[in-house]
């Protein structure tokens, strides 16, 4: 069969702020036959999205195709004029964005945006397009297919928007669909529904697809072939089964190894059952406190109790909006709890951080998800680490400098980074600095709020190892807030599952794989597995939870 897409010797250059040109895609060859799904997999910055976008002749600001050819349906996109390319876009090659929530125009009704492609290219009359859109909505198992199009983007959920974006991509019967990390922003429970809808609809449409993702397990469910990318080069390419079972390239093996349960044998320390390090009792917290009737508009955390013992780790898992981050804020005092008790190291803490002593604040540190946002971009690493040292310990000058070196050593960063700013570090390095900042206070407890979810799989494994080592060296306790079950299972000896503000189940290390509560079962079974038949083998009828 003739190739639908033939990429030969593709090079893409990016211009840096300093006007330096760097190659972000280096000499890539890629083929796609009609009806085939090829996955591009790699970490952030590997050039996977950039390659996919060249199929539409599009490069993001500052980037340009510098060499090679991209033959789509017999024509070279690189040689085309912008006008010819726009005729291709949407009609022959269409795009499903990473975040549909951002990719829908907030000011226009969904239906208008879904059928816009057909109007731009004059493919079919508006009424016919609307009918076809409703069929697609139905095929993608969206609720109320007849009327959902009349709503505005903010009126539907993230998972629904992602499926609507797929409808938008398929409406004009394109030959190729580009999926750009379409489920990365979704919860695992939602991801399954979306993946299944994608799979069904692609099978029916018979279109070819490029599926860009960093998640090997997700890709394994959909792709016929997988191309593994790193640093803008194809490292390895082959049939899905072949890549999963006989990976040759070391990087591919590393990716696959990240899926192995990497739980080190746990040696649980002796604990005093009567004296937990942190005892949270019946905490209620939320937003929109009304003085008039003494109630919360949004009760994000509803009567949650949990205990954490010294030297142990507690995981709090649940989907977005379940209240797990709010709970972290309530424990640390950023958002004062409305009722309940927080007892830390034998003493009851005030609800707000203002009512806590400097020592209480020092002993409990929080590390946030986005190191980018948590570290001041205008400050050097030196300043960032020096500040808590001066604040909590009064260290200055030589003593402070020594301590900074020690902290950087703890998080396995070279001291040569001291003069740099956060923007000059990689994602993993930034997260390490973020940890070092928390360690500077010499805490007893560190609350980690989704600390690994912005990082690549391979980097996550390294960070988890680091945390484990630090725990042994410094006798720390951790609370991990995460939606990533495998990460939490790897390091915690107790998991609390939250659902709609309540702690629905508590799992100890020995029965971590046998959840009892239906929501926990659903959550655990939703984590994608490397087995390509995993999605199909899942029971069609999954437990439906009601509030």
């Amino acid at each position, binding site marked *: 069969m003739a190739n639908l897409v033939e990429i030969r010797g593709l090079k893409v250059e990016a211009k840096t702020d300093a006007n330096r040109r760097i190659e972000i895609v280096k000499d890539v060859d890629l083929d796609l036959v009609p009806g085939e799904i090829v996955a591009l997999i790699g970490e952030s910055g590997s050039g996977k999205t950039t390659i996919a976008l060249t199929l539409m002749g599009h490069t993001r600001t500052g980037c340009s195709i510098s060499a090679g050819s991209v033959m789509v349906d017999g024509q070279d996109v690189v040689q085309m004029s912008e006008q010819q390319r*726009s005729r291709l876009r*949407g*009609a022959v090659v*269409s795009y499903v*964005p990473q975040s549909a929530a951002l*990719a*829908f*125009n907030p000011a226009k009704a969904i239906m208008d945006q879904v059928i816009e492609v057909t109007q*731009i*290219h004059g493919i079919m009359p508006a009424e016919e397009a609307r009918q076809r859109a409703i069929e697609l909505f139905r095929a993608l198992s969206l609720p109320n297919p007849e009327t959902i199009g009349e709503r505005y983007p903010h009126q539907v959920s993230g998972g629904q928007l992602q499926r609507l974006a797929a409808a938008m991509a398929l409406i004009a019967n394109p030959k190729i669909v580009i999926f750009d990390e379409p489920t990365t922003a979704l919860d695992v429970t939602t991801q399954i529904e979306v993946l299944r809808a994608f799979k069904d609809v692609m099978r029916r449409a018979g279109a070819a697809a490029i599926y860009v993702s960093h998640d090997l397990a997700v890709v394994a469910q959909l792709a016929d072939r997988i191309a593994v990318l790193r640093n803008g080069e194809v490292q390895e390419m082959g049939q899905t089964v072949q890549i999963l079972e006989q990976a040759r390239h070391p990087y591919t093996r590393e990716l696959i190894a990240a899926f192995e349960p990497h739980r080190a044998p746990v040696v649980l320390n002796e604990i005093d059952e009567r004296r937990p390090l942190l005892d949270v009792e019946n905490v209620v917290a939320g937003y929109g406190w009304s003085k008039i009737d003494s109630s919360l508009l949004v009760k994000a955390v509803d009567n949650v109790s949990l205990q954490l013992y010294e030297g142990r780790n507690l995981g709090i898992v649940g989907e977005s909006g379940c209240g797990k981050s709010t709970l972290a804020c309530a424990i640390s005092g950023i958002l004062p709890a409305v009722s309940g008790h927080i007892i830390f190291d034998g003493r009851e803490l005030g609800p707000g951080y203002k009512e806590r002593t400097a020592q209480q604040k020092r002993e409990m540190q929080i590390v946030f998800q986005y190191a980018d946002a948590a570290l001041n971009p205008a400050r050097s690493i030196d300043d960032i680490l020096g500040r808590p040292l001066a604040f909590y310990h009064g260290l200055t000058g030589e003593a402070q400098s020594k301590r900074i070196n020690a902290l950087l050593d703890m998080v396995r960063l070279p001291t040569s980074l001291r003069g740099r700013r956060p923007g000059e570090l990689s994602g993993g390095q930034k997260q390490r600095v973020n940890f070092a900042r928390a360690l500077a206070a010499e805490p007893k407890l560190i609350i980690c709020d989704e600390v690994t979810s912005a990082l690549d799989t391979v980097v996550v494994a390294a960070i988890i190892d680091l945390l484990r080592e630090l725990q042994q060296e410094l006798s720390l306790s951790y609370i991990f807030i995460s939606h990533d079950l495998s990460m939490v299972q790897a390091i915690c000896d107790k998991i609390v599952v939250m659902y709609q503000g309540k702690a629905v189940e508590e799992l100890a290390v020995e029965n971590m794989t046998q959840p009892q509560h239906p929501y926990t079962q659903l959550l655990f079974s939703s984590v994608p597995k490397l087995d390509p038949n995993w999605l199909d083998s899942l029971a069609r009828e999954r437990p439906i939870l009601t509030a």
Partner: protein
Amino acid sequence: MNKHILFLITNRIIISLITLLIIAVIVFVATTLLPGDTATILLGQSATPEAIEGLRKAMHLDEPAFTRFISWILAFLHGDLGISYSNNMPVADMVGRRLLNSLKLASVTTAFAVPLSLFLGVTTAVMRGSLYDRAVTIFTIGVISIPEFIVATTAVLIFAVYLKWLPALSLTADIDTLAGLLRAYAMPVITLTCVVSAQMIRMTRAAVIDALASPYVEMALLKGASRKRLVLSHALPNSLGPIANAMALSLSYLLGGVIIVETIFNYPGIAKLMVDAVTTRDLPLIQSCAMIFCLAYLLLVTIADLIAILSNPRLR
């Protein structure tokens, strides 16, 4: 949803009314704080203390400030702006004619400046980084930096003195014919357009660039949308709020801030009236003018906020 927006709008209008009341207090207090006794100034240095005392009584100046404020604001609400101290004419009559003149000038300027700014702002945003963009940017920054009296006098120098195309003064009787009107208004309007457009162009450009960089515009591009469609149907509707606000701020200048232009072209507008009132210490006139300026400003800002509320689909 509709109930919610109605609530927001009423809320916004109530806030405007409260602001207006606060402004009234400030205006009143500020004018009472003006140095010098009104009665003494009106009667001159040679007046007897009895005469001054009599006048004070007649003008209710001996009453406490609070009662004076209440009676002033009540009269104001009934449309009674008081009697001018300097020429005993009703303030309403004096202001009325001048206000009409100012509004005429302001609306002609708006009619030119708004479409011009929108056009230049949007086109420079679309052609960002091009020679055209840079030329317009340099021009607008230049105009922002140059004080308006230089713009105005340069315009007089070029069009009235050298080219002799236009009259140097706008106070001509001949504004009944269209040609006469155009001739009389040309230079003040050019000057004012320069002054108010610069800011509007820059804000429009920034708002549209912001919207153009958003993922939904990239998505539309990847659907094959033309540039025109990207800008008009995707970017612009989302930048209406900030643009309306920038416009309101710039246009509010057209009533109170035009004093220099009115003076240079000898145009009988309300700003000039107020400055004259200050020199004659004509309190009712000053208060009325100040209230009118604040009202106009408040009106524009409120309208801009309402546009922002209405153009936001999350609230609609």
